[in-house]
């Protein structure tokens, strides 16, 4: 238990240092004077820009040695002082608050939908390996896995918003808008988790304790519910840890595609606009979200599989 906790804490620290260091280097190597760029971003490039740039230089301490600036940079990161956006001029932390909520909702909805689709398809496939459900599931998984998320999103958008007119193609605010982006991610996630579930269920169905449960006269639904589900769930849940990569990457892509005002969308915008404090803040949040999902998966695995508690 403690071991898992420390590993995740360490991971969070590594995320912060990698993101912080990259953004610090980014700030220094971009062509042009950093102070000038910030001043231009804040006040607009007008005749008094040089004066403004000097003020910015003093304010941010850009005239100090690089090493001092770097330590200072990491220090403010540790205090969660993320600075101000070069574009809007508002505190990054403030912008992130709103966006983080939107992204968390999207990720949670996608995960939930994928758990409704993937494991159920996998369960029917695994109970009868080689049967119709198994083969249809396999075809679906192979197809959906080969479609990149942005193409999947476009297809859903064209089908559900354009042709059928059921759902809005973009925007934010009501559950109707979250459905398409979440479904895009969920289908990709389910393509993977359905096969893991199928293999896990097939393995459980072959196990001696499963046969024994049948021999002692339990009905089929009871056998599956009491002896199948929990055992089969262990690999599926630990696989979610790997799927977190797909989820986070997908959130970035899908948010940009559906103009969904989350952190991924903000990250892509910040990169295009070279708004480094925003790049840092958003990348940090996405990284920490990744760590948090990993930690949650650890906890659920421990709860599902008591054997892990002894070794952990």
């Amino acid at each position, binding site marked *: 238990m403690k071991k898992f906790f420390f590993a995740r804490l360490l991971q969070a620290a590594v995320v912060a240092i990698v993101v912080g260091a*990259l953004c610090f280097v*980014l700030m220094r190597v971009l062509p042009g004077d950093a102070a000038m760029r910030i001043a231009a971003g804040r006040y607009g490039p007008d005749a008094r820009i040089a004066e403004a740039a000097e003020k910015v230089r003093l304010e941010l301490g850009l005239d100090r040695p690089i090493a001092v600036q770097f330590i200072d940079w990491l220090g403010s990161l540790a205090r969660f002082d993320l600075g101000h956006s070069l574009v809007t001029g508002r505190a990054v932390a403030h912008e992130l608050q709103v966006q983080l909520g939107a992204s968390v909702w999207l990720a949670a909805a996608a995960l939930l939908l994928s758990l409704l689709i993937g494991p159920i398809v996998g369960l029917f496939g695994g109970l009868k390996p080689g049967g119709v459900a198994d083969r249809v599931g396999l075809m679906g998984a192979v197809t959906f896995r080969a479609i990149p998320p942005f193409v999947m999103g476009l297809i859903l958008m064209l089908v559900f918003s354009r042709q059928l007119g059921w759902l809005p193609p973009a925007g934010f605010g009501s559950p109707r808008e979250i459905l398409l982006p979440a479904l895009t991610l969920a289908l990709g996630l389910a393509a993977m988790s359905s096969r893991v579930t199928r293999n896990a269920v097939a393995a459980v169905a072959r196990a001696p304790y499963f046969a024994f449960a049948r021999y002692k006269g339990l009905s089929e639904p009871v056998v599956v519910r009491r002896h199948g589900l929990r055992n089969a769930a262990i690999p599926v849940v630990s696989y979610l840890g790997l799927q*977190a990569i797909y989820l986070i990457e997908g959130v970035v*892509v899908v948010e940009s595609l559906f103009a969904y005002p989350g952190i991924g969308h903000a990250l892509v915008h910040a990169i295009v606009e070279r708004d480094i404090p925003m790049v840092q803040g958003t990348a940090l949040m996405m*990284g920490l979200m*990744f760590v948090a999902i990993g930690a949650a998966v650890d906890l659920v695995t421990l709860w599902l599989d008591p054997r892990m508690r002894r070794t952990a």
Partner: protein
Amino acid sequence: MSTFDNISFKRPKTGIGSARLAGAGLLILLGGFSIVGPVVIPSDPAAQDFGASLAPIGGDYLLGADHYGRSLVARLAHGARLSFAMAFLTMLAAALPGVLLGLLAAWKGGWTERLLEFVATVVLALPGLMLVLLLLAFAPGNYGPLFLGLALTLWVEFYRVTKTTTRTVLAQPHIEAARMLGFGSRYIFVHYVLPVIGPMIATLSAFAMATAIIAVSTLSAISVGLQPPTPELGSMIVELLPYYAEAPMHVLLPATLIFLLVLGLQLLAQGDRA
């Protein structure tokens, strides 16, 4: 960058399964199109002809023309070649250091391994695409950071698999016997290690290429990857999307091409174990 996850350590079944065969066939067709296409098709993928804007499929233009009247078949061929080339180079840039460092770590152990393990952990702390995005922030729209970022995230998988497998192989009694009989490291590597890790690395390479193709097209589609007018499949889709009402097939063509590329690679990589 998450397509690697269902690699099993079992050696692939002997013989070529039907899925693998289908994947290989698909790739040969697409590879032919991307290598021969740009040479054979006379039209320039950047040549505009506004008179032929959104020309239909099968008219003067074989697969129609886009909104600037650029020949779609030429753009698709160049796009496929770009995707293949990017994917192949990225795979090489990831596989070479990954495999060599994996062998080194398994062979040497000790501090060498601990250091490499640390680097791998640092790289894996963030989802791969985030690292690529952060590097892209240095120069959006350029090949360099895109290529570097992808290679940087993909080498870890090669390193890990090579290291673990080589370690297992080296610990087995027949290696010890070979050593005691006086066979050198080179002999052991060629005759005992390579036959085991070879197929795995081939599988990983196909996955890495599929991942690279998805990543490049995705990043270009969200306008931080390669920029128009480069005939990149992902950005072609986004460019043509506003004209979906007039020319739906034009949008679906590049999307289908990406799908088939990735499908071919994934089928080739995992065969019947999908």
